[in-house]
């Protein structure tokens, strides 16, 4: 029993050793600059966002995937778009890399997130709302050609 207690103690000491629990309480400086830096407030009050952001994300996640709701406020893509930092040359820094927006807190609270095994960690590719116009030029060309043909046919008959 005594031995067991000693071993348990050792395990506890190991777990809370500074190596593993290393957050020193000093604010991490985030490298680069993000759009959010200039914003007065996030989509909800900051304190609420700090505590409940995942609730919003989970909620929006199912609404988006299953029901096709694409509102911007609680959209994951939008979070990244706003909070991702850009370095001096304007390149986005992955938001889950060390010292960046997501990672800073999640390291501190030891909550592992696997969002970025699937989601892009920087804005990449086409903008969701980008306007895509179907190129009808060739159609119009075709139509006018057909019309020309028709007209010459009609003329010919006359």
């Amino acid at each position: 029993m005594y031995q067991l207690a000693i071993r348990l103690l050792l395990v506890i000491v190991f777990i809370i050793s500074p190596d593993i629990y290393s957050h020193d309480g000093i604010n991490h400086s985030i490298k680069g600059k993000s759009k959010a830096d200039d914003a007065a407030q996030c989509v909800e009050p900051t304190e609420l966002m700090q505590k409940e952001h995942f609730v919003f994300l989970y909620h929006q996640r199912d609404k988006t995937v299953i029901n096709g709701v694409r509102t911007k406020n609680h959209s994951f893509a939008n979070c990244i778009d706003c909070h991702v930092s850009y370095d001096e040359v304007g390149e986005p820094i992955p938001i889950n890399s060390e010292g960046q927006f997501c990672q800073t807190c999640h390291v501190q609270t030891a909550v592992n997130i696997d969002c970025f095994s699937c989601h892009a960690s920087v804005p990449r590719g086409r903008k969701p709302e980008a306007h895509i116009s179907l190129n009808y030029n060739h159609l119009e060309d075709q139509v006018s050609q057909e019309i020309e043909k028709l007209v010459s046919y009609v003329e010919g008959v006359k």
Partner: protein
Amino acid sequence: MSTDIKLTRRGFIVKSISVLSTVYFIPDLFAPAQAAKPLHEEVKSDTKWAMSIDVDKCASGCTACVDACVEENGLYGFDRPETDSQWIRKLTIKDIKTDKVKVVPMLCQHCENPPCCDVCPTGASFRRVDGIVMVNQHTCIGCRYCMMACPFKARSFVHENLTEQVTTAPRGKGCVESCNFCVNRIDHGIPTTACEEACMKEGHKAISFGDLSDPNSRVNKALKIKQNRRLRADLSLKQRVTYSNI
């Protein structure tokens, strides 16, 4: 009324047909704007997304649709063709009776009775009410039963860690994925898929996409012009992707 401008017969015919043709094309140009749903609204079952593929117009050697899909969804592979994902692919097929060779694009057929959704243990494979069959990658456990069930080999499993995903198409290791009719575009009011857009830009117009409940949609026009067929009709899956000239 001034009669200074002479209206020739030729001019009259050209102008009137032009006007008529605009009438014919305007619904196409503006239909998207009307059909687009506001971002905050949920999709409804009275929208019925569908695709018609005219096999005779599909050009041999052209991979515009495949390339566009790769770019749209960030499907960059690892040069391992056996495990790399393919959402749309081109097949060369030969008629058994006539020996006539054709090329067809194959993609998820978006069945109304999808076998993949029937077998999925967690319900991650699901059919959205507007007819899009897709994978909810938040609940997919990667069992690959849907791949066993699909008669069209439309699905791929992500076999490795990915890093270059695009924002509009999240995808990752250990989940199954397939064509989702460019759902991100549709939800943002862009009523065309990347493959259809590419096929149009190439000038082939083999792919027509649209809403079945909109009589003026491109897919409905294509369906009206040529008789369309479903592949493996014996399975009664009621696919939303249909083929003509096959």
